């Protein structure tokens, strides 16, 4: 017998476009222009940030794919 609680799906909780809209809105409200701001980042920083995001992406996938704890009991 297997009992499942909760939704196992890996779908994005909020559509991508909505998140983009919200993030763009935050930038606009704070007078940040992504096209200008991206020049503030050096190539070295860009590379580090890229690696950081890719690393986190892997961790999120791993988490979603059920990297879980199993406990056994006989009591």
């Amino acid at each position, binding site marked *: *017998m*297997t*009992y*499942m*609680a*909760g*939704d*196992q799906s*890996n779908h*994005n*909780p*909020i559509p*991508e476009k909505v*998140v*983009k809209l*919200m*993030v*763009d809105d*935050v*930038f606009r*409200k*704070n*007078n*940040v222009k*992504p096209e200008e*701001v*991206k020049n*503030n*980042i050096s190539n070295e*920083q*860009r590379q580090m*940030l*890229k690696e*950081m*995001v890719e690393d*986190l*992406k892997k*961790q*999120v996938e791993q*988490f*979603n794919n059920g*990297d*879980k*704890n*199993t*406990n*056994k*009991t*006989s*009591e």
Partner: protein
Amino acid sequence: MSHMTETKWRALDYCKNNINDQNNADTTQDADQAVSNQQISDEWIIIKDSENIDVTTTDRQAAVSLQLGIEAAIAAVISIAIGGSASQGISQDINQMIGTRQGNRQKTIVEQSSDIQITTTDTDIAVNIQLLFQVLATIVASLDIL
């Protein structure tokens, strides 16, 4: 007093030699509180008078540290790209955006049972992690980092 025709089945009645190494479960989890965003998430799994119960739950420690990792990454990206006083306002706005998740409580009770497999997912923290990463990916994409 009425006649007791049947006695209650009790798992422990049959557990004479059952003290083995598998008995390492800490199945009643304390009320956990996720560090960020007033998010409260309680998970209770109560197992009573039962035997051979397999429990699979979300690894909360991994979940919370992953959540913190993504939050730190968002802060780092904003601070590096924008810097100065503007980055504070942006961080605040972003926090507001991701800080409105509701708490989730689930209770699972198993009583007088044997050979049961339980899998629970803390949907709340899973959704939160997914959303946080989505926000990070979007910020990074609009800054042309990826």
